[in-house]
């Protein structure tokens, strides 16, 4: 469904991604793990057209998408829940969620999805009239995930979705991500909580210094000695 071929990206003079090739199969969950600064966020930003790539190509559902605008890429069915929440603080919770469905025309479906998001995070329904900037940090994180779901994506990319969530919410979110995949959404997940991510992943990629250094099933990465030492602390 998604293919990257030899993608290279620079930030200023610094090499952020070097010759990255990967493929994400339809209806699977791929987890990307790696230290901070490895290029994980850059990778997601490149796919959705927020960061220009300097070499290589990106393909989604058979079409080449590098060079397209973010708007066009979202319209094709790609969605990103960005790092650091990036919610719209001066808009209400409901308006933020509606913004996630901005490019959709079918009102009935949007209402259905809104209900799904409220089932997932009941606190968002309780607070739907409140300005998003007045939510707590963890609630804003829930809103960012909800907003990403509102475009009914075919490919959902999540950048650190568990950040700032309580232990109980963290396990709820990972369970829900797994369920969303079961419903047929393809997921690309970047997480510091490598254990929880690999546990639900079909495939895991280890990104270090802008390069993919390991690629395997989630299960076998969980058993891998190097991964265990570096990312799981066991």
């Amino acid at each position, binding site marked *: 469904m998604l293919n990257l071929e030899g993608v290279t990206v620079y930030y200023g003079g610094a090499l952020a991604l070097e010759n990255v090739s990967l493929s994400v199969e339809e209806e699977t969950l791929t987890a990307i793990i790696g*230290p901070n600064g490895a290029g994980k966020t850059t990778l997601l930003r490149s796919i959705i057209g927020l960061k220009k790539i300097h070499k290589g190509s990106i393909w989604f559902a058979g079409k080449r998408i590098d060079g397209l605008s973010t708007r066009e890429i979202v319209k094709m069915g790609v969605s990103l829940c960005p790092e650091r929440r990036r919610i719209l603080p001066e808009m209400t919770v409901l308006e933020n969620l509606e913004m996630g469905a901005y490019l959709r025309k079918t009102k009935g479906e949007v209402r259905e999805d809104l209900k799904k998001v409220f089932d997932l995070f009941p*606190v968002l329904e309780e607070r739907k009239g409140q300005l998003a900037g007045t939510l*707590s940090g*963890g609630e804003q994180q829930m809103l960012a995930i909800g907003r990403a779901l509102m475009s009914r994506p075919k490919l959902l990319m999540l950048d650190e979705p568990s950040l*700032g969530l*309580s*232990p109980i919410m*963290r*396990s709820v979110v990972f369970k829900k991500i797994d369920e969303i995949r079961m419903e047929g959404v393809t997921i690309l997940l970047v997480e510091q909580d490598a254990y929880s991510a690999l546990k639900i992943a079909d495939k895991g990629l280890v990104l270090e210094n802008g390069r993919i250094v390991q690629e395997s099933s989630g299960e076998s990465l969980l058993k891998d000695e190097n991964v265990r030492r570096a990312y799981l602390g066991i």
Partner: protein
Amino acid sequence: MEVYNNGLKMALLEVKGLTKRFKGLIAVKNVSFTVDEGECVGIIGPNGAGKTTIFNLITGFLKPENGAVFLKGEDITNLKPYEIVNRGIARTFQLICPFPNMSVMENVLVPLYGKRKKLEGNLEEKGSEILKLVGLSHQKDKLARNLPHGDLKKLEIARALATEPEILLLDEPFAGLSFDEMAVLMEVIKKLHESGLTIVIVEHVMRVIMNLSERVIVISEGEKIAEGKPKEVVQDKKVIEAYLGVSTIA
């Protein structure tokens, strides 16, 4: 250690009956607790429980409707944030906000500059000391915007330390850190605590709370629902229900 007239030990920080409303919502409801000198206290609780609001009330970013905050017995409730910093309470923020186009050293020099009249010796020397303490010496000339996330978290703490606090309030310092970075930051905070700094830490990573804090306060829906040693608190039924979830007991 200062002492009350009745001979009881005086807490360094005392929060008494704090209540804060946001329109209809009661964000903090009659919360009281104390922090003794040299303690490391953890605050945990569900998202939206009011943990950050409590920090905002202590540091003067918000004013409570009811209740008061005392530092060494003095009422600081109605002071402004900068006055409270000058009295010795520093904090970090969940979303780190350094000056991106200044170097690491310059970021630390900004708060130090505010202290220049009281400080002995050279500001840069003091800055170097602080950067060494948090393990950022090797990055001192780098622009803040070029630092990896783990180092930015350390810089956030360094900037707070540069205000020379007696109490340091840390708001989710471990969020978004990799396992290795967590281990490093845990050592940094341990070292600060051992050097005598009083620390209050809001954090969801239970391994950190269990490891660092001597006492844990649990907040849920604006109220204090439990308080005690970390090992006792994680077995509390209310805490498991509201916060940990059955399967995640640390």
